[in-house]
């Protein structure tokens, strides 16, 4: 069956499902502990998954398949990219549970159940090897997220939850029609087979657009991003973490898994669309972030800008760009998650997200200030942190294709430094003017335990990215080989300099 002779992926989906159902019937404290233990066990299983992952082995590992449903199969299996995204999920989940330990006091059982159900779906999306199974799990995420935002969200939660639900649903349903057509055409819903099936280029255009509708909303790309700031601001802290950390990655994963390898010609054809929207996103949303008064909104807009770097890297059609995009996704998952946690920490103390209400936190919350600084730097992309590796690679890849787009994208990095440092200055530096801010205690042991692992992971990814690059190298290679036939020609026409001062005789002399 697979290297463990055991359906570990099914177990990783079944276990949280079971725990979610049990949570519904437990009291608050028991539900918290059950959720924490379950997510930690899953993290352990994730480590097993990674440790036994055979780098350089077959493309699809841990494959399992069962024709339970007649028309489509319960088919799971992962490659290196899926494996890392699953790792990101199981890594962030215990942290989310921990972040909700004290801030969620109402209907705790249901809350934990919703998060555990969310985890089932996220693992499933990254592991699904059947097109329809993927769609079902991809869409099903709407239900728990709708409830999380709507029940435990902020003041304007109803509007935000509606907007989130309908926006993403509208994006996805068109994709379903495209999937139906693809399966009719190819005669199978098996993703690995479809990855190597050549659709008619004329049809690819429409299919690509249908998938784009879904992934661009999920990602989100400008101008389809407006649901994101609302959803983030209203969601509880852990909801924001999971939304920014993992759910947004589904969009990038979709481009990577479906749009590029299944429709290479169409991807090339629409490269201008992706580049255009991403360029606007990088500059525009960064500028918008610069003027935000609400911390969560600022980070939400920065997410849009970072995701634009991901799309730029993915559609560079080369190894550097795609590997960089994947690393940005992982890095952003960690860093934006951590930043939302940082906001959550001070929100729990003062119950406001308004930046001006803070200031001088470096004085009375030094531990917090250090960690917040680290994540700020990682978000900016300082060398030594995870952000740098991904952004650098993406831009290198992009530069091979289009220097002008790269130029615009790079300004995003500068603007990113602008809004993040500005945020940090206003929150952490300056005088402690507000009395209530002065009274805020530093990080508790629980909060430390939440932020420290992320900090370690961010540093690890920044200092020794090879751990994360090795599993994806083969898969990116396969992808690049697949889409190479459609790869755009770069605009930088490098010429070899002409050799000078070599006489005819010498050349002939050597030739003889």
């Amino acid at each position, binding site marked *: 069956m697979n290297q463990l002779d055991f359906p570990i992926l099914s177990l990783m989906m079944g276990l949280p499902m079971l725990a979610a159902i049990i949570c519904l019937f437990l009291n608050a404290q028991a539900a918290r502990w059950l959720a924490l233990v379950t997510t930690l066990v899953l993290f352990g299983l994730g480590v097993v998954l990674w440790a036994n992952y055979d780098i350089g082995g077959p493309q699809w590992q841990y494959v399992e398949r069962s024709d*339970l449903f*007649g028309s489509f199969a319960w088919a799971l299996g992962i490659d290196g990219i899926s494996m890392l995204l699953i790792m990101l999920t199981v890594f962030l989940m215990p942290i989310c549970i921990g972040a909700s330990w004290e801030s969620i006091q109402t209907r705790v059982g249901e809350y934990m159940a919703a998060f555990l159900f969310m985890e089932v779906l996220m693992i499933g999306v990254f592991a699904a090897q059947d097109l329809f199974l993927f769609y079902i799990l991809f869409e099903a995420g709407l239900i728990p997220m709708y*409830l999380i935002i*709507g029940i435990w969200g902020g003041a304007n939660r109803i509007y935000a939850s509606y907007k989130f639900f309908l926006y993403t649903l509208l994006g996805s349903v068109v994709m379903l029609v495209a999937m139906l057509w693809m399966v009719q055409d190819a005669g199978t819903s098996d993703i690995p087979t479809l990855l190597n099936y050549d659709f008619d280029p004329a049809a690819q255009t429409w299919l690509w657009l249908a998938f784009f509708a879904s992934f661009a909303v999920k990602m989100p790309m400008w101008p389809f991003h407006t649901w994101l700031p609302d959803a983030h601001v209203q969601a509880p802290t852990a909801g924001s973490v999971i939304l920014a950390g993992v759910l947004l990655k589904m969009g990038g994963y979709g481009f990577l898994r479906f749009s590029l390898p299944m429709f290479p010609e169409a991807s090339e054809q629409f490269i201008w669309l992706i580049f255009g929207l991403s360029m606007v996103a990088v500059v525009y949303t960064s500028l918008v972030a610069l003027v935000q008064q609400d911390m969560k909104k600022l980070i939400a807009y920065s997410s849009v800008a970072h995701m634009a770097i991901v799309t730029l890297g993915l559609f560079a059609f080369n190894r550097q760009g795609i590997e960089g995009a994947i690393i940005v996704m992982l890095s952003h998952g960690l860093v934006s998650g951590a930043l939302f946690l940082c906001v959550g920490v001070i929100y729990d103390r003062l119950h406001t997200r308004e930046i001006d209400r803070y200031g001088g936190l470096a004085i009375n919350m030094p531990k917090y200030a250090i960690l917040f600084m680290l994540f700020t730097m990682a978000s900016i992309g300082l060398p030594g942190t995870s952000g740098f590796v991904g952004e650098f690679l993406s831009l290198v890849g992009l530069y091979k294709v289009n220097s002008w787009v790269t130029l615009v994208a790079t300004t995003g990095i500068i603007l990113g430094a602008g809004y993040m440092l500005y945020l940090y200055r206003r929150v952490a530096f300056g005088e402690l003017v507000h009395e209530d801010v002065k009274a805020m205690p530093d990080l508790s042991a629980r909060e430390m335990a939440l932020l420290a692992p992320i900090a370690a992971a961010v540093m690890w990814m920044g200092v020794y990215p090879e751990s994360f690059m090795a599993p994806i190298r083969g898969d990116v290679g396969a992808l690049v080989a697949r889409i190479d036939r459609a790869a755009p020609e770069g605009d930088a026409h490098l010429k070899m300099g002409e050799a000078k001062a070599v006489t005819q005789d010498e050349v002939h002399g050597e030739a003889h």
Partner: protein
Amino acid sequence: MDIGNSLYLVAPEVFLTVSSLILLLIAAWGGEKSARLVTILSAAALFGASVLLMVLAHMPEFKDGASAFSDQYRMDAFGSAAKFLIYLAAIISLMIAPRFFQAGGKYRPEYAVLILFACVGMGMMVSATDMMTLYIGLELNSLSAYVLASFIRTDVRSSEAGLKYFVLGALASGMLLFGISLVYGFAGSTSFAVIGETLSGDLSTGPLIGLVLVLSGLAFKISAVPFHMWTPDVYEGAPTPVSAFFASAPKVAAVALTARVIIEAFGGQTSAWQQIIVFVALASIILGAVAAIGQQNIKRLLAYSSINNVGFMLIGLATGTAQGISAMMFYLVVYVAMTLGSFVCVLEMRDKDGKPLESLSSLAGLSQTRPGLAAAFAVFMFSLAGIPPLFGFWGKFLVFDAAVAAGMLPLAVIGIAASVIGAFYYIKVVKIIYFDDPAGEIVATGHKTENGLIALLALFVSPLGYLAIPFMAPITDAAAASLF
């Protein structure tokens, strides 16, 4: 085919007719005291009819179906599947009735008998292969339905519902009859098979008008736009168990009947009926979605929801392929489960005096007072909206798959995009149940039968339902194949 063999083929109907006549006598002599007994016996009769149905369907000599009474009636996989679903829905409608009527005063045994008569009519509808059988079955069902709608005769709303249903239903029957007479005039026969043979090639204006009128009459019965106006009023006014019945069994019968008429009688006239069905389907989906948004009464909302869902079923029918009919049948099964589940949930909406509540606002915060009921309600709502992983998604999936396979891409895209509009009011109900502060109007304890039914239906609609696909798909496929 001799009469004995014919009677053999209609055994479920004969059995139901005899049982309902006997039960009518019991009801006449026993009065109200016998209500519970008659209800139980009616359910048993429906169960018996289902068994007969299955025995007949599994007989090797009837494997490919058989015709009775000189091609007036046909016993085949399609009719059997539809009838089985109808009987099942009727049994549930019987189970939920006693408590509701007792709370409002009297429970009279005629309710159960009327449901049985309606089932006889519906059985004839789905098996009809002749316009006459069709009309008789339809009227038998409709007459029972008019009485059921006004079953609480002391309630003004109920009487109004009955009267409205009757007047509009009579109009629809008139249109249907006029259409049938035109078709008969041009085809020279009322038999579907002969009509199908005679009316080939381009249709002249006469039979075309006949076709349009027949479809209009049927569209009224399935409450498809633009003949849907009666639905919200009748569903709102009729007693809730009756609304549940209307939304399930007669809908199955009417949709199945429409499919049979279209495929068997007008199968060669695809271009003539297809555009009508496509328009009716899309109009039903969009109007059912948009008009439901402003509703404050849960029963009216569910009425619009049923209009919306009929639109999706008609997409399957619009393809005119076996795959489309199979998808339509599958959708019907899931739809019946979802809609009956929702209505049973509505039955649970009672204040502490046992008075039924119907306004959406009384559902507020239900998740905190009745978490189980709230979860089931949310499951039905998300499922009706077609959100995976709930089973309602699979019904929509199949009809759209059929539409795509038949090359009707624009229909699929418009239909699925319109389903997002519909999602809005379904998640609005979930919002009221889960996000709002408790109104505390709904009494905190449930009823055993109702809770059991809700749990059962919710489990079927939940992702566990997907495990049923390998068992259900061959049945709906066989049903669809028997029409072609």
